[in-house]
């Protein structure tokens, strides 16, 4: 029995890695070979389909521990139960470990815009230019590196710009406004 639970736990973990964390090595064939070598392909297929369905349901509404317990227990009590009483505990243990990670993975999957990957900056002081003899004006040079998760090769895009104190002041004004709105809306 203990071994059975171990295999079930392993299978759930494998499915999470394959379906949510993008681990392409965790194929069904691999999982079957490692965990359920004796099971017929048909039965294994049914088992994985049931596991996937349960995880998907829990992930879809991001169930907390109470909700997941109610959900899984009710699944075990159904006539054509997709989960046995002993598997309930294993599935809940799995969900406790993976809930937030799976939720984060789902969040990543639905953000299609550029993500800011890196910000770097340096300060230069211009002492003189061709057009006029400037007084020592410090300028910030900023480089933003973006990544787009939607593109297969995680395409990287870069933008560089300079800011004098005036344009930095404007940027910081925007940053303050955003912070105020976040504060206001998180209450």
């Amino acid at each position, binding site marked *: 029995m203990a071994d059975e639970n171990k295999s079930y736990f392993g299978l759930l973990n494998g499915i999470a890695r394959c379906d949510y964390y993008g681990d392409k090595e965790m194929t069904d064939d691999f999982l079957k070979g490692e965990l359920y070598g004796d099971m017929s392909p048909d039965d294994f297929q049914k088992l994985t389909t049931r596991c996937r369905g349960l995880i998907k349901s829990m992930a879809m509404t991001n169930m907390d521990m109470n909700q997941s317990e109610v959900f899984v227990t009710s699944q075990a009590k159904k006539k054509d139960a997709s989960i046995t009483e002993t598997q309930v505990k294993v599935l809940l243990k799995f969900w406790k470990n993976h809930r937030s990670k799976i939720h984060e993975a789902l969040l990543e999957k639905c953000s299609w815009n550029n993500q800011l990957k890196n910000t770097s900056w340096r300060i230069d002081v211009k002492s003189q230019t061709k057009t006029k003899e400037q007084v020592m004006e410090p300028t910030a040079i900023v480089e933003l590196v973006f990544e787009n998760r939607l593109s297969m090769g995680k395409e990287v895009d870069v933008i560089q710009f300079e800011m004098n104190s005036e344009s930095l002041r404007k940027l910081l004004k925007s*940053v303050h406004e955003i912070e105020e709105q976040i504060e206001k809306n998180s209450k």
Partner: protein
Amino acid sequence: MEEDVVSLLQIGRLIDVQWTLGVAVSSNTCKNINSPFVAMAVKVQDSSGKVVSKSFELSLMEFQSFSRQMKDIATVLETM
């Protein structure tokens, strides 16, 4: 070739920043997302007058880190 050198030396100026604060509510993979995000668009004009815009999205944590870096720059600029 010469143009390449010029563009390397002449970094564009930041001319505009636009932003949106939003909350992702629901998606096909998850009904309860409820995750706030900041979307920003920066406009940069190079010395020839050409304007390039880039937009990007930040989680709250990423925005906080971005904000901290911009404030760090301000601190350094002030002391110069």
